[in-house]
């Protein structure tokens, strides 16, 4: 009898016992914890590595000889790039579930607000803020999203690239959330100019340092510089400052309960993206061989992008004067941002202490020159440019 004639009645697990019949876990990587998580199972080693299992090396190169993936695409070095696991543990199913939940939440809030006629009761001065400044800010979110979409090409492992990919997905969704939200509530408010936001983004002096900071992130050629600048610099200093420090604190007092709900999704997104980024950069700074070189590099990135971000933040100060009901102050918001970025710096191991602002009168217009002067004095090596 030949082997192919052997009868087996069931092909289910456990139907026979033979060598390997109980080997039911992916066994080629070291889980972070005691047991591999589902995220690890579907993520680890999908992007191969000649230093692990890629026997025949990368088999196509770019015209200049660079292989399909290269460690040289970032100035940062790592003894083991495979050590990184994203704390948010996202894979496709959890990503869609979360994104879809957010979309549903926003849609419910906006539908209910519009049904109740809420946009018509927004304070008029606040409507101008939504039109001109929330409308401008959506472009910042989009710029960061496109930068991250490019950055997700370059990481040395699947874990790094997927964390950046989901970050891009969140940012681009949020930019669209704001765009469509403004278009919808705008249609309920007479005379709402949907093109005004972009005009302010491109030409309003208040937004120019912000645009400059975003364009510097987009133009950075090191993908981890982009990831760092987005999550560890721009987001705490400008993104959260505007979203939480301004819109979410001020809106309710202007009869607007829906905008904070839309914005809150981005704050929750950021907490996850921040956790991922902190985990990665902390790992790189703990690296026994390259930690110190990495710290110096991150510090220089912080100096560069931190300077731009502080300038952008300070230039936004007049916004706090625009709402009719003053529910929050720029000084408080900036102080929180300053503390936040310093805490993030401590978490990963760089010095991110920024100088405190001189006392600023509410309503005083900051100029780029004054902003730059406020942060020129080096404090603990973290001066802005």
């Amino acid at each position, binding site marked *: 009898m030949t082997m192919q004639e052997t009868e087996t009645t069931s092909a289910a697990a456990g139907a026979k016992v033979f060598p390997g019949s109980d080997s039911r876990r992916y066994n080629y*990587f070291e889980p972070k914890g005691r047991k591999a998580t589902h995220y690890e199972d579907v993520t680890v*080693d999908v992007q191969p590595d000649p230093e692990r299992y890629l026997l025949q090396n*990368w088999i196509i190169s770019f015209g200049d000889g660079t292989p*399909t993936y290269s460690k040289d695409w970032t100035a940062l070095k790592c003894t083991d790039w495979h050590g990184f696991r994203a704390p948010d543990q996202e894979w496709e199913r959890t990503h869609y579930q979360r994104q879809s939940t957010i979309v549903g939440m926003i849609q419910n809030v906006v539908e209910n607000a519009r049904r109740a006629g809420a946009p018509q009761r927004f304070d008029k001065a606040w409507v101008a803020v939504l039109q001109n400044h929330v409308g401008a800010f959506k472009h910042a979110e989009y710029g960061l999203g496109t930068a991250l979409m*490019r950055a997700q090409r370059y990481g040395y492992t699947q874990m790094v690239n997927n964390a950046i990919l989901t970050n891009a997905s969140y940012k681009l969704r949020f930019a*669209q959330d704001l765009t469509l939200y403004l278009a919808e509530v705008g249609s309920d408010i007479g005379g709402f100019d949907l093109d005004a936001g972009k005009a302010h983004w491109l030409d309003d002096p208040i937004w120019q340092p912000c645009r400059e900071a975003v364009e510097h992130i987009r133009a950075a050629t090191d993908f981890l510089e982009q990831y760092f600048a987005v999550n560890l610099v721009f987001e705490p200093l400008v993104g959260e400052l505007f979203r939480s420090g301004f819109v979410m604190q001020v809106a309710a007092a202007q009869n607007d309960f829906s905008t904070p709900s839309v914005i809150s999704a981005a704050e929750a997104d950021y907490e996850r993206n921040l956790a991922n980024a902190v985990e990665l950069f902390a790992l790189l700074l703990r690296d026994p061989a390259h930690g110190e070189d990495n710290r110096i590099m991150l510090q220089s990135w912080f100096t560069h992008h931190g300077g731009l971000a502080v300038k952008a933040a300070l230039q936004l100060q007049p916004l706090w004067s625009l709402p009719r009901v003053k529910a929050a102050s720029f000084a408080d918001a900036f102080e929180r941002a300053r503390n936040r970025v310093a805490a993030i710096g401590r978490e990963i191991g760089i010095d991110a202490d920024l100088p405190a602002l001189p006392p600023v009168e509410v309503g005083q217009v900051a100029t780029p020159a004054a902003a730059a002067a406020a942060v020129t004095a080096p404090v603990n090596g973290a001066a802005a440019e």
Partner: protein
Amino acid sequence: MPDGLTLNKITSQKGIGITEAARRVADLGWTPSYVKEAMAFPTDYKISKAPRDPMKQVLRSYFPMQEEKDNRVYGALDAALRGDMFRNVEPRWIEWMKLFLAIIPFPEISAARSMATLGQLAPGDDLRTGFTMQMIDEFRHSTIQMNLKKWYMENYIDPAGFDITEKAFGKCYATTIGRQFGEAFLTGDAITASNIYLQVVAETAFTNTLFVAMPSEAARNGDYALPTVFLSVQSDESRHIGNGHSMLMSVLKEPDNHLLLERDIRYSFWQNHMIVDAAIGTIIEYGTKNRDKNKESYAELWHRWIFEDYYRTYMLPLEKYGIKIHHDDVHEAFDSIVKKNYVHKIAQFFSAGWWANFWRIEAMTERDFEWFESKYPGWYDEFGVWWENYAKLSKPGSVPITFADTGYVYPHRCWSSLVPCVIREDFQIDEVDGELYTYASEVDRWTHKEAFAAEYQGRPTPAMGRFSGRRQWEEVYDGWDLADAIQDMGFVRPDGKTLVAQPHLSFEEKDMWTLDHVRGHTIRSPLLALREMTPQQRQAHVEEYRKGFKIRRV
């Protein structure tokens, strides 16, 4: 309630139209003025026209739609287990999933990465959302396929091979062919790789055989999971096809691009044929137990999906834009399947080297012979004895069929596609930069020597990719004993001696081959041997190789 009035109509608010929404979203982009973004991805193409978004979908409708698709997929997997799918599934089929699912997540995630490229290269922001969705889709495909494979590993009788999957992907002679496919999506000239090879050819043409024809065969073998996952995957492909076509239309606008388009469509079509037809043709024809003579053969499927649907309705119309289409290549690809037995010769090769696999291949039986003969007249004369020999030599202690006196000549490997040169009469050799290489066909020779070069027909092409790495598996293990090579690859079960691969589907320990059964045979690289020959010996060897062989009964 009056007729036609629904709760939704009462409660919903007037929204903005989809065209207006897409226009607003596309208007998020701007031209930087403080610092210009350097073009990170090299291309020799010029693109000035902004591609338009044919789908006009925005992310807030995309995410719930995808979540719903996921819910159906995962619900169906649960239902398959409750219905005891694995009691009735055909092991012959699931074994091939060890190979297929080891390969496919890498091309998927490569496609995700390549959206970085197209997102940056495409002028304007109109198609950015399309590329964004494709990026997230591909992330979906990669991880949903890893999940499916884990599910097979947990529930199928023999998990060996699934348990080492991504390690096996890095080591195996066959998965390297899949890597040629995946790396080609994101390496080299950005338009060649991400637009033409990936979107215009792989996704528009060959996903039909990959993700539509294959699930049908899975269902015939009692596997309801693969169709559930892969038809869901395929439902995303229409978006990618739309992205690709829109980008192609932008690229076409520049007459300077036409020469490169001709090169890239030719290279991409031929290499997709060589790689996808080798793998999927074999899995569909040889991984099935279903021998219904009324079902389409791979050749018939190919004619429907590739020849009629793709070639006639997608490729041919490109001629009106001034692009030269190589009709002869398309006909030759079809002939290679129907007249030159390409798929059968690849299946023969996979079985010849069964010991180097990380999945099992069982022998074809009389029932299979009858089906093959009816679909491919003359099949038995050429392949029947091979499979009878294979069955005889499937007992441990037999000579591994590669080394048995069957008359089989272990094939050279094609430097371009990495598929073995199994159509012997088409075998080619040539020198590139003073080194000798082997090719499966004239188009493969052209691909390496002319297309993947710094200059194409007198035009500098610095962005074009290059073939690199240790491309031939046989070279890596030249001079190694089989047992040592298998051990080095890690294709051994947890007892440290039993091979993962087996030339049969017996689950009895006594029937299973161990390292000792294959020890004493040496792997040789045909290419290294060819390079060591004198010119006269080489010429004689090539002539002899092209004559082919006749299998003897052992």
